[in-house]
């Protein structure tokens, strides 16, 4: 493993109070890509609406995590 990879992963995996959750966005994006591929490309999976909507929801979550400080509701 490249020596620069671990510190980079460590940086991506942490997000402070009002920072974009980049690690979370990455996780959501990878999961969304996998689920959407299985739902819309692989016909063998015979994906139902829950799986298809779930993939799109994960994509939305990736955007929400990336734009976290600008989230639409205050608290």
């Amino acid at each position, binding site marked *: 493993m490249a020596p620069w990879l*671990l*510190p980079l*992963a*460590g940086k991506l*995996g*942490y*997000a*402070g*109070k009002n920072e974009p*959750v980049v*690690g*979370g966005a990455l*996780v*959501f994006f*990878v*999961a969304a890509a*996998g*689920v959407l591929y*299985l739902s819309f490309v*692989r016909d*063998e*999976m*015979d994906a139902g609406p*829950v799986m298809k909507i779930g993939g799109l929801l*994960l994509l939305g*979550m990736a955007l*929400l*995590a990336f734009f*976290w400080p600008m*989230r639409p*509701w205050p*608290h």
Partner: protein
Amino acid sequence: MTTLSTDELDFGDGGPEVQHEGSWYDTVAKAVAHLVLLFFSAVMTIPFVWAFLTSLKPENKIFTTIRQIIPADPTFANYVNVWMQNPLDRWILNSLVLAVGVVFFTLLLDTLAGYALAKGDFKGKSLVYTLVIGTLVIPPQVVLVPLYLEMNALNWSNTYWAIMVLYIANPFGTFMMRQFFLGIPDSLIEAARMDGCSTFQIYTRVMLPLAKPALSSLGVFTFIFVWGAFLWPLVILNDSSMYPLQVGIGLLTGRYSSQWGQLLAAVVIAALPVIAAYLLAQRTFMEGIALTGGKG
């Protein structure tokens, strides 16, 4: 012409009698079974219903009206307060990041490992399988300190990865998927091989679609487990912005006083995604349990 008849035969020869459906014995047995089931359902459900109804009471009336189950003047003030006074949205996002990541990679890696252990032919297969099952008997608390030191050495404490890496590829999932793949006939693999599929294509085009019920139940099991994970995240995280929901809720209780209404409101919020996950995948979840012989 000979006529065959059973009229003269006597079947009432003192042998065991078969209880037919609809008899009083059947009715009583069903009633007893239902009473037992209702009792245990109530034991499981009543605390959650009580928590929900108590979360609707104003903070100052929780202990004075503790014997009054249904609140006289229900209010959602506790829900509003706990949401406004704590970073609950961030904790929910953290829990979702962990749960989604762990479920996705668990399903990916456990199906690959389960497929290899069920249908693969390689040296040391039984040793690998024994090692996988062997990890199930080690209590997680035993390895807590070494893991903490390891994550610190990697400089990964206070990150999502420190939690996700620990839970990904759990041995229970590998065992469950292996049991499922063992039930799939080899003729399907041979047919796919004759059609020109590689081993990986057999996995993606034949095995994975067939494993949908098992994937669904494993996904729900893993989601529920990660959503409720408490000890390891509590140990490895020390920044409140990185807390998952369960750790955040756990630290809402103060040393000298606690906002019990807000705490119960947060608990009810925390339970909602698990209930939703189960309801969404209920049918395939049951199929998966039946097919793999797994249980919660």
